[in-house]
């Protein structure tokens, strides 16, 4: 296998991989129009009346004063749902358990109880604060321990316990492996809720035209949200039209239906277009990362080879399911890390709690288990005096190896990622960079490394239409959402490559369900691989169709017609392909790609993922033992990238992974007070700034010509926090088990270390 690097001097890539992103100029100039910029004429504005307590029974809702305030169009509660045959309706993209407006009970702080629609946003907010809601408090379930207690109150009575989703597997004989293991370790690791913090908040607009619904929404799932709206409002699917202009960030925070059913209802009830925009504070009660507690037991032999792992993962899912079922699966599959683990016993459970619904968050439940599996592996290595890089070399899944589930892993590249990430750190060494433990000053330096494994949605379906338009351009119509990850560039480049036309003739079209065909979701880093393949197929079919039309038109054999460099050549002569469009009218081709998991010969079951996101992160930190402050001095990441379609985009994804991962590792945490976020502003909830990002940050995308396309949205993020934690341990000996690694936690750990 020949590996190339991101160095343009050595990389051998296809069509224009080094060209800029397709819309660079508009993005930088601020001309890009996001969902928040959509202006629907005549739209009224909504504001929500939200529950101030985590659990209770709704009594009287007094809307009289609010209704009389200036500009108010309507004040609506669950009672109004009945008039539109929506009483008791529940929504959700996987599990349908969320009411449009709370009826009878509230299950989390911030749950919408009533909605005000008014002429202006300010009027709507003023009136919302005048709605009086009586709620009889009931004891809430706020933690995983609360939720799993034997006599816990039920967040959803009738569901049977507070278990929202559970994925478990056992592979091999745990008892035998335990007794055979010379060294056994058991630890508990925790990580708190965090917020995705998209710079653009959730924004939703709806308008009805008779019984047709048109919406603009900040969603990562246009096709499935459209299906969900059709189901809820008893419409044919083609009576729902959902537009998704570019998003100002996603990171999972805009995954799955959120305000869309409510805003569609408000527009229906008011016979007016309605717009709803979350405030920053509301974002914190709309969706969060899953807080998690992980108990992990590992047995190894004298060489540090893993003999077994037993992992019990508990996640706090909040009051409604959202993507929790997928989180349970993601955590289970990644629980043992990308290591040979002949015996595994894994349980991954998401519990309902009376907190805002936890949902997708870059890394989807994997960051939480990687924090445990990768941190503990370093503890094991230190106990056995094995180098942390070496213990990973010995245990990493190799080509032809198997995952802890027992299934084969196609294309294992962790060893290459490990070596490349570690080398990347060495490559940046400066003279003062020697690891110094126990030096005279307060600063201690240490290095750490961690690996990442994450599955992708399997099966998922992506359809793409590629069209030659009468004005001679090629439109790439997909429901893949552009949230900054560079999908328009990747998809346009794929079409340009197949059609062999200049990229400026290719126009990526943003999701509009009236025009763009089905796609499962823009998440799980699946767009490049899945939609990229659908576009390749559609462009191939279109190319063939165009060639055949020209052959028929000219009465020649199709094999004598070529399309090269945007020029059609036939025995009759040459012409630009753009000119052909005007003659033929619109020519379109649609194709689909389904990544159907194959049956694993050994396990007899479908494989869990058709490919695996793979990466490694290495960092060097300094720890100030007087202040407890951790500074990342340098960071190096290596991802398995398959074939790269956009070099700039690929690098931005890997860099963005590391930067994004620094926040939850070092300082991001939602602080709950009685179920309410106490730090729901960007002053009190800090996200990484340029100050937190080391000057030395390098990434490498491991490529192979002709390899399968890979998304890179999450290949490094699970490894970031454990790599930092491992570096801290190397620097000062403190073994942190709770994220984020705040100065307070570090100083406490140092005190504990000293008193030992």
């Amino acid at each position, binding site marked *: 296998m020949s590996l190339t690097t*991101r*160095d*343009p001097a050595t*990389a051998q890539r296809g069509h224009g991989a*080094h*060209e*800029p*992103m397709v819309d*660079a*100029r*508009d*993005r*930088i*100039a*601020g*001309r*890009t*129009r*996001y969902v*928040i*910029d959509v202006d629907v004429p005549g739209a009224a504005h909504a504001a929500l009346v939200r529950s101030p307590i985590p659990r209770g029974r709704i009594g009287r809702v007094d809307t009289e004063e609010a209704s009389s305030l200036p500009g108010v169009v309507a004040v609506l509660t669950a009672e109004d749902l009945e008039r539109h045959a929506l009483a008791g309706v529940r929504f959700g993209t996987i599990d349908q358990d969320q009411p449009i407006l709370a009826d009878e009970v509230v299950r989390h702080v911030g749950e919408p109880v009533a909605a005000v629609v008014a002429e202006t946003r300010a009027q709507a907010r003023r009136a919302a604060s005048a709605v009086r809601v009586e709620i009889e408090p009931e004891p809430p379930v706020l933690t995983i321990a609360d939720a799993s207690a034997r006599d816990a109150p039920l967040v959803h009575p009738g569901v049977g316990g507070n278990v929202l989703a559970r994925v478990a597997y056992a592979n091999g004989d745990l008892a035998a492996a335990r007794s055979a293991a010379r060294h056994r370790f058991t630890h508990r690791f925790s990580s708190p809720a965090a917020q995705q*913090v*998209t*710079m*653009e*908040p959730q924004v939703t607009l709806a308008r009805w035209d008779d019984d047709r619904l048109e919406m603009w929404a900040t969603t990562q799932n246009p096709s499935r949200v459209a299906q969900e709206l059709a189901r809820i409002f008893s419409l044919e699917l083609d009576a729902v039209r959902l537009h998704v202009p*570019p*998003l*100002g*960030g996603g*990171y999972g925070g805009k995954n799955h239906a959120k305000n869309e059913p409510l805003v569609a209802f408000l527009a229906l009830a008011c016979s007016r277009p309605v717009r709803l925009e979350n405030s*920053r504070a509301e974002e914190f009660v709309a969706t969060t990362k899953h807080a998690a507690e992980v108990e992990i037991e590992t047995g190894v032999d004298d060489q540090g080879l893993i003999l077994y792992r037993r992992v019990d993962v508990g996640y706090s899912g909040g009051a409604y399911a959202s993507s929790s079922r997928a989180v349970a699966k993601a955590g289970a599959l990644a629980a043992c890390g990308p290591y040979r683990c002949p015996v595994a016993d894994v349980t991954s459970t998401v519990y309902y709690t009376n907190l805002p619904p936890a949902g997708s968050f870059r890394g989807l439940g994997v960051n939480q288990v990687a924090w445990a599996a990768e941190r503990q592996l370093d503890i094991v290595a230190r106990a056995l005096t094995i180098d942390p890089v070496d213990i990973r070399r010995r245990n990493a899944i190799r080509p032809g190896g198997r995952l802890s589930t027992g299934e084969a892993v196609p294309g294992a590249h962790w060893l290459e990622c490990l070596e490349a990430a570690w080398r990347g750190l060495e490559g940046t060494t400066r003279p003062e960079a020697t690891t110094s433990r126990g030096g005279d000053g307060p600063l201690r330096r240490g290095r750490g490394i961690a690996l990442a494994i994450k599955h992708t949605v399997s099966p998922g379906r992506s359809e793409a239409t590629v069209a030659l338009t009468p004005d001679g351009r090629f439109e790439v119509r997909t429901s893949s959402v552009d*949230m*900054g*990850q*560079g999908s328009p560039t990747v998809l346009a480049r794929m079409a340009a490559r197949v059609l062999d036309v200049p990229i400026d003739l290719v126009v990526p079209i943003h999701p509009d369900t009236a025009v763009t065909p089905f796609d499962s979701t823009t998440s799980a880093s699946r767009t490049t691989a899945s939609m990229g393949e659908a576009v390749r197929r559609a462009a191939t079919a279109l190319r063939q169709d165009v060639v055949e039309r020209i052959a028929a038109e000219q009465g020649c054999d199709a094999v004598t017609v070529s399309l090269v460099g945007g020029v059609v050549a036939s025995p009759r002569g040459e012409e630009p392909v753009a000119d052909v469009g005007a003659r033929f009218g619109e020519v379109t081709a649609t194709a689909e790609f389904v990544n159907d998991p194959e049956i694993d010969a050994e396990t007899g079951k479908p494989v869990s993922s058709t490919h695996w996101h793979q990466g490694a992160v290495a960092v060097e930190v300094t720890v100030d033992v007087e202040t407890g402050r951790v500074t990342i001095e340098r960071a190096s990441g290596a991802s398995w990238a398959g074939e790269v379609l956009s*070099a*700039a985009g690929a*690098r*931005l994804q890997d*860099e*963005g*992974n*590391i*930067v*994004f991962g620094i926040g939850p590792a070092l300082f991001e945490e939602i602080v709950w007070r009685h179920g309410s976020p106490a730090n729901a*502003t*960007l*002053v009190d909830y800090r*996200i*990484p*700034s*340029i*100050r937190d*990002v080391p*000057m030395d*940050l390098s990434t490498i995308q491991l490529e192979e010509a002709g390899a399968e396309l890979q998304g890179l949205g999450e290949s490094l993020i699970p490894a970031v926090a454990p790599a930092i934690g491992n570096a801290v341990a190397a620097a000062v000996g403190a073994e942190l088990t709770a994220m984020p690694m705040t100065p307070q936690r570090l100083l406490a750990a140092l005190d504990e270390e000293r008193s030992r």
Partner: protein
Amino acid sequence: MTDGLRIRVNGEDTRVACDPMSTLHDVLHDRLGLLSVRAPCRAGVCGACSVLVDGQLFASCLLPAAAVEGRDLLTSEGIGDDHPVRAAFERAGAFQCGYCIPGFVLAVVAWCNEGALDPDDATDRLAGNLCRCGSYVAIRRALRELSQGAVTPQSG
């Protein structure tokens, strides 16, 4: 301000009828339709609402409109695509979703207004701008290009 707020915006003298205590962000974004001026935090920490007031960088989400009476304002809309700062961001591919980037560009323009730009100072000069996509590394590449006046193809 009985006959409205008088400001010069992107080179044009403008009069806007508005509540003098409304924020400059709301006047620019809501009244004048300058949509690049965004307000993700409304607390002065993210920099996406940045504007230059007489060449100096301000967070428009915290500034009362009355405070800029008679001043000369620059938003992203008033910067040309061939401006060296913008060109450097483009060459370095320094953006992802792009929502925050006009604020970064304005911060760098203000920085350049004060004299030579030293990329090593970025940690202090750009600490008031947040990019959740994490484009900081690419932004540092843009600053290096800008300080060297280097014109290279798409930074690889």
